[in-house]
């Protein structure tokens, strides 16, 4: 007789709620007479808030740390990730409600269910303790995002979606093959096994094949590298960022990076912990290439969305810099960085959406000329986000940069920190150039900014949060302190 594991549903209640409300949204879309953003936004918001409540109940979880037959971990690490991801989803939904009301013809109600599904995949991936569950979650989020990318049906969006799908499928194959190799090495796909030995126990006890484990590591690096858009697996990023509708990019850019990095931390720092000496050089190399490629190629960009795409590649490199430390300081630094980065990305793309008032075409730098004169509020908010991306005090980006470099130097990787700081000077150049356009150029003719209140408030809250975190980072580090220790 096959023994079924005892099921404890509370740890995955956030995901269950998200999927339930996604289905409700789909049903509404199917039966609604005409598309209307308001009910969709209401359904999605309720779903997200319900998920937040159920996730916060997990903060003081006293039960078994691994549930559902050891496939799902319950720890503060994943709760933090869920908060960030759900926040990103909420902001993305708010943005799209505004985006849809601006141009009712192109509004697609499917955005909301798809976003909820993607969010469910993202939150699940950060809690997954089994490579198979990680893969399932990865596919759930990826497939939703492929569709979201092309949701407007415009030519450029469709092209981006196609590119994303093809390259994404390719990377999924790598990932899957990596799982197979990991199973071959450890005869288990559990990261930490309680009932039976998982990957970490097998590798630590040296019962598995080391060669297969190294192969698995290499393949998993490719899969994760694609998702976090680390160079040289970044090829899709600029095209998708440019082609996809801006609310989708805001959500995707912030949330995918958070989810993929949290999963990467669990797989590498926990599962492949016995191979630390083998994977740190790999992450080191990825970090160097990402930082250099992202910072240098961004210089030539004249489209703000492409520019932010290349900057996201460089930021992936900075986060990897913290992770090369392979200790809890590095993990904490990366987590702080991810929270700050998610907030900045959401805010910056919110402004991009408001600036490109007429459709998707006005994302060139010229649309930002004289923005400070046209709408000083938007320009001020964008400046805060850009300064945070450049890592200038008093923003959260500065503290984030200091903590990741400090972690890397503490682990002896100071050459990487030198490369990082030099690249951040290069990066400062193109962030400054946007500021130059906003403050020091005359406004272009016929460009107008959107005056939408809701996205403005959201971006304002994010900007305030970034400054508060920059001045009082203790608020967040206090939360991350207990969350960064991944148990095994």
């Amino acid at each position: 007789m096959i023994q079924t594991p005892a099921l404890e549903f509370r740890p995955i209640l956030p995901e269950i709620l998200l999927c339930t409300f996604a289905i409700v949204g789909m049903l509404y879309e199917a039966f609604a007479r005409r598309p209307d953003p308001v009910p969709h936004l209401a359904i999605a918001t309720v779903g997200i808030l319900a998920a937040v409540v159920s996730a916060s109940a997990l903060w003081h979880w006293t039960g078994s740390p691994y549930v559902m037959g050891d496939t799902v971990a319950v720890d503060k690490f994943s709760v933090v990730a869920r908060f960030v991801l759900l926040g990103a989803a909420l902001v993305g939904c708010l943005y799209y409600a505004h985006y849809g009301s601006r141009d009712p013809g192109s509004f697609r109600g499917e955005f909301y269910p798809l976003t909820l599904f993607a969010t469910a995949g993202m939150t699940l991936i950060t809690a997954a303790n089994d490579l198979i569950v990680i893969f399932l979650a990865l596919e759930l989020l990826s497939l939703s995002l492929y569709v979201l990318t092309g949701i407007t049906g415009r030519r450029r969006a469709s092209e981006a979606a196609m590119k994303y799908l093809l390259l994404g499928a390719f990377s999924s194959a790598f990932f899957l093959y990596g799982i197979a190799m990991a199973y071959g090495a450890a005869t288990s796909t559990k990261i930490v096994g309680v009932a039976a030995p998982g990957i970490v126990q097998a590798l630590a006890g040296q019962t598995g094949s080391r060669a297969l484990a190294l192969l698995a590591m290499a393949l998993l690096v490719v899969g994760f590298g694609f998702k976090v858009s680390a160079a040289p697996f970044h090829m899709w990023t600029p095209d998708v960022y440019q082609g996809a509708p801006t609310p989708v990019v805001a959500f995707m850019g912030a949330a995918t990076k958070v989810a993929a990095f949290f999963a990467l931390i669990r797989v590498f720092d926990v599962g492949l912990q016995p191979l630390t000496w083998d994977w740190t050089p790999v992450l080191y190399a990825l970090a160097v290439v990402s930082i250099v490629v992202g910072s240098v190629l961004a210089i030539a960009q004249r489209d703000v969305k492409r520019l932010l795409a290349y900057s996201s590649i460089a930021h992936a490199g900075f986060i990897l810099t913290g992770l090369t430390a392979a200790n809890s300081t590095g993990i904490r630094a990366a987590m702080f960085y991810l929270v700050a980065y998610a907030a900045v990305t959401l805010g910056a793309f919110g402004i991009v959406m408001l600036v490109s008032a007429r459709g998707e075409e006005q994302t060139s730098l010229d649309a930002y000329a004289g923005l400070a004169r046209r709408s000083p509020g938007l320009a001020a908010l964008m400046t805060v986000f850009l300064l945070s991306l450049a890592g200038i005090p008093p923003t959260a980006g500065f503290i984030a940069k200091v903590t990741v470099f400090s972690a890397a130097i503490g682990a002896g990787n100071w050459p990487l920190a030198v490369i990082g700081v030099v690249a951040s000077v290069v990066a400062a150049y193109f962030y400054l150039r946007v500021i130059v356009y906003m403050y020091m150029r005359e406004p272009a003719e016929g460009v107008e900014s959107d005056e939408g209140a809701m996205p403005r408030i959201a971006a304002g809250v994010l900007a305030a949060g970034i400054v508060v975190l920059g001045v009082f980072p203790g608020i967040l580090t206090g939360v991350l302190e207990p969350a960064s220790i991944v148990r095994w």
Partner: protein
Amino acid sequence: MRQHLLTFTILFPLVGATLIALVGRRIDDRDTRILALLTTLATFGVSLLVLRDFQTGATGYQMVDRASWVRSLGLQYLVGVDGISLWLVLLTTFLFPISVLASWKIGTNVARYMVAILVLESAVLGSFVALDLLLFFLFFEAILVPMYLIIGGWGSGNRVYAAIKFFLFTMAGSAFLLVGILFLYSRSGQLGPPSFELGRLTQVAGGLPVPTARWLFLAFFVAFAVKVPLFPLHTWLPDAHTEAPTAGSVLLAGVLLKVGTYGLLRFNLSMFPQASIHFATFVSVLAVIGIIYGAVCALIQTDVKRLVAYSSVSHLGFVVLGIFAFTQQAVTGGVLQMVNHGLATGALFLLVGMVYERTHTREFAEMGGLAGVMPWLLGAFLFVVFASAGLPGLSSFVGEFLVIVGTFAVSHLFGALSAVAVVLGAIYLLWSYQRVAYGPLREEHRYLPDLSGREVAVLAPVLALLLVFGVYPSLLTRSIDPATCVTIEQVRSSQTCADVGGPVVPAAAEGRQP
């Protein structure tokens, strides 16, 4: 109350900036200006209280204010002054009201401009008093943004290029500083909880192997050398100075450059004494090249603002030369020269700005004969030219003299070369005055107005101080000496402060003998 005085000097401008940012759009531009002026005056008032409570002659940091800021990082809010930073703080709080007054005519985006100026003041003050290295770095980086906005937003001609160049040069230098600080921080965990405190990191630096300490010295050095700016990292300065609005140039020359020399003195010398000695010749050579190169470049400029900018390169070279001579006289002279250069060059930029407002040109070729039209303005100009050229009895003389004397004790060659540059300085300054004041007057300049009441209010305090510090330098030196002595003692542990004691300013400098 007393121990929070420094915190108040940092906070006052920030409060003013917040206020202006909130109400600036709704009130008159004139009220915004007055609000900014009052804020800077209040800050100056608080800094005078700092001066009153400062115990002259005592060594070590005073009025130390400490609070834990980010516990998880070990970042502290830790500020304090000694005789070196005291005068730089006062110079800063003194020059800011003058700069606000000098920018009265700025008519576009007044609120935004004043916010930038006030935030800049906070950041500069913070970097002069911070005793925690990450805190210092925070302020050091925070200086960039407002200055960048001031140059880029209210400058002339090629302002965007100059602003970006300024930002990137300084940030590139400070990037290495950050790595250096984090490196020391990563080692500080061995002596208790990790911290960025200056005292602790100095201990850490003392225990490092010699090559590591030398690399760290260089990392710190690059950051400050860009800021000073030291040859060959000075190329951003002429552009930034030339394109910045008058107040921007005044503040850039008056206080921002001093952050660099202050950093060299405070951090490089005291944290890496052995490496400082090792690199002393190298740094001195750069300084001497800068002194002469700056002077020669100033000689050939046709743009009056560029001339003053290159003269800064030359004068700041003196400061660095003095600091790296490691003699009591030279270092004290260097600090004195920081203050004096801030006043003299600040005044020069103010005057150049006033001339420009009237003639709308900075080219020597398009000026001439102005002395007959604006006797008061040009009289003030002549006074400042003399002060800047180091005429005995005016402030710069004392500083330069002490630096040269102190350097001679170490190296005759450097002393002799820098003395030559003093002559060059007199040539280009007097020649520039000649080209502005005398010669044929252009027809369109015939009816230019002389100094207004506001302009007198701007200039008079600066000119008065140039005279006071020239005649009575021990006003400054008696509090500077103990502080420089501590630094020198750290570098050459053989010499103790007790040995040096007594008045360092020789009689020759006190009197009016050349």
